[in-house]
């Protein structure tokens, strides 16, 4: 404990000196890297920061351990606003992000801040969306479910772990649109506090379908209480998840990736931006990271630098379109 305190005190002192001496340098060298997890310890963003920070340090990409700071609030809004308004020109700052971040940005829920005010550095994996039903459900395929949603949408309540307009909701709407349902507003989405709560309501028979991420469905899938109708991935998942059919192969061309990655301040120098994109690309390719992914059920999804930037832009357009259709934004 005391070593820890001393180390962080030393880090703080060094950090303040660096701030004073800060100026443009030719080649970027990271120093006292900080990773902001825009949530409390224990959540997905916290996990992303801690695991990636540890791996970056072990690969020698940062001179010292990455310091993780938790800045919870507004589903990432508090951290985003702080980076944009107060720490815009820092080069040694990375912030954990995911599809939840882009969803809220797309819907203008970050107090009007936009996705082009930061630099998107790298994605290190994804959790793909699934749509499932209880084991005794009459719906055997995604097509069955979509047919009912088309003909009698009041009959099926779909539970998910995000608020209305959140990613769990949007996933099922993306699938419905791909299945040819024109008015997605008719779909009954029941918002729960988290994926676990939603899947429990399904198993308890209170709702008819579940939308969430594969990691949330795993426990009940293995016990046989939950039948996953489709995974919203471009192709079948690796390992023992290969049995789950994709929506695509059932004729419904829908992909819903909840990616995990990082952004940095918008005023970051090009040298630093290139350094971090490169670092995340190498990290993603490393054996150590592939093992972390496999151990934690994180699926392949590696994009960095400009590639991630254009993916984020596209995802935001897609989310805005669908949010407009359900009347969430104008």
């Amino acid at each position, binding site marked *: 404990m005391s070593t820890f305190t001393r180390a962080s005190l030393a880090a703080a002192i060094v950090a303040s000196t660096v701030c004073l001496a800060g100026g443009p340098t030719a080649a970027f060298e990271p120093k006292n890297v900080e990773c902001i997890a825009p949530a409390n*310890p224990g959540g997905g963003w916290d996990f992303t920061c801690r695991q990636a920070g540890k791996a970056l340090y072990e690969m020698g990409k940062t001179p010292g351990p990455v310091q*993780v700071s938790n800045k919870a609030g*507004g589903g990432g809004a508090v951290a985003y606003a702080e980076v944009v308004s107060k720490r815009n020109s820092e080069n040694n700052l990375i912030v954990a992000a995911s599809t939840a971040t882009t969803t809220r940005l797309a819907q203008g829920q970050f107090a009007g801040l936009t996705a082009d005010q930061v630099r998107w550095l790298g994605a290190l994996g994804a959790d793909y969306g699934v749509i499932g039903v209880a084991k005794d459900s009459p719906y055997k395929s995604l097509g069955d479910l979509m047919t009912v949603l088309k003909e009698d949408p009041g009959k099926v309540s779909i539970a998910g772990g995000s608020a209305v307009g959140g990613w769990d909701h949007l996933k099922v709407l993306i699938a419905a649109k791909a299945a040819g349902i024109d008015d997605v507003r008719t779909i009954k989405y029941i918002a729960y506090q*988290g994926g676990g709560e939603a899947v429990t309501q399904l198993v*308890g028979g209170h709702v008819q379908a579940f939308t969430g991420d594969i990691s949330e469905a795993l*426990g009940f899938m293995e016990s046989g209480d939950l039948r996953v109708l489709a995974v919203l991935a471009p192709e079948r998942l690796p390992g023992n998840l290969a049995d789950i059919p994709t929506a695509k192969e059932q004729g419904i061309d829908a992909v819903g990736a909840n990616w995990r990655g990082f952004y940095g301040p918008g005023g970051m120098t090009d040298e630093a931006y290139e350094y971090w994109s490169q670092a995340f690309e190498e990290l993603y390719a490393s054996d150590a990271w592939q093992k972390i992914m496999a151990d934690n059920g994180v699926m392949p999804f590696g994009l960095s630098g400009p590639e991630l930037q254009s993916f984020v832009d596209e995802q935001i357009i897609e989310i805005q379109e669908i949010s407009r259709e359900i009347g969430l934004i104008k």
Partner: protein
Amino acid sequence: MEIFDSLIQGFAVALTFQNLGLALLGCFLGTIIGAMPGLGPSNGVAILIPLAFSLGLPATPALILLTSVYYGAMYGGRISSILLNIPGDEPALMTTLDGYPMAKQGRAGEALALSGLASFVGSFVATIGVALFAPLLVKLALLFGPAEYFALFTLAFATLGGVSSKNQAKAAMAAALGLGIAMIGIDGSTGAQRFTFGEIHLLDGIDFLVAIVGLFAISEVLLFMEHKGVDSSIGTKLDRITIPLATLKRSIGAMARGTGIGFVAGVLPGAGASLGSFVAYTVEKRVSDRDGTFGKGDVRGLAAPEAGNNASAGGALIPMLSLGVPGSGTTAVLLAMLLTLNITPGPLLFTKNPDVVWGLIAALFIANFMLLLMNIPLVGLFARVLQVPARILMPAVAMISFVGIYGISGSTFELLLMVGFGVAGYVLRKLEVPLVPVILGILLGNQMEDNLRRALQISNGDWGILWASPLAIGLWTFAIVGFVAPMIVGRLVRPRVPAALAETADPD
């Protein structure tokens, strides 16, 4: 007996020097964290997760450390409730009602010792419950859909009259105020922002910890300042720290009932420890309060909620382990920890990772005994807080409140909010409006609203869904009886209690 074999295996896992050391450390830190105003079990666990990571602990020892902190904080929360009338965390809210009056009467030692024992009974029995009935109780949790949850929360509010004996109208108004505050933030059922005024810090709603610390701790400091810094009425004499046999006899029933109610509330995800201790108190008051002594330092009013909130802490582990659903804020953090350690909680956890589950259960038994042994002798030390003159104590309370809230939120906005709640709490106390229903409104309001709307959404707007299941009908019956019975019975049986116009430092 399969369970006993498993449990013995669990003890084999838990009884290593490292694990015992971690449990001891966890219990100690947990008690301290729980006793600090504003820092509760969920923050305690969250704060220590990085420690578990950096020590590189495997799953079982990490869980042992964190659940010891959890249980420790549940024990510790009572301390500041009793001594200072400031709940250390939200489940300890009800402990203020009879615990603080006892301290004022100079019975702080007795109150601390008794509540420590009640905590032990509650969590010990609950841990046995987890070991024996986990698979069975999961079925109960599955029975609760949105309609049943709505009925359950209505039941809680229907018995609200039990909190305040003085003025029911004021209690109802306070609850309405709390419900109103709960509406702030993003509305889950529509995604719309309500009463956020474009302020990003309000998107998640008001953190009830900020509300508790503001309403209780800061307003206490303000009251002290109003009295121009003259030492307030907190009793400074110290009595024995043992529990008289008569007291023990009187409170056994209360402990048993509190344990049962708390445990069931814990098992239901979304109900949690606060509801457990709240219902434990109101039920106990209905059952035992014949002479109107509740709220004035009745030992049963102390034992019931303390047993209740600790029992629900144990109960909440059941849905977390076997459904992967957190029953409280703390179990949500524990759940995330498990996922990070690559353990998937769910129906198969008991068969797939028996070492983790049974090691954990064994560790809980150990932690319980440690906490009892640690808490009873320390009562004398804790109680000494009362001998600190208020002119030193009150600034310390203010400082801990500010540091605590800033420590968990890292934002100055929350500090301003806390001060705002402090001023509001001061005004409410002056108006003799009880503060406990305000907090309950904030704690339960969102859940109640969300479940009503979920139910109506599922039924396509048919209100019949609310009483469509036998379970829902049962809950409604209890709610109606709980609401109406005191009006009839109370008038017949209870002698009219003269409206006590005590000093406003007692917020009820």
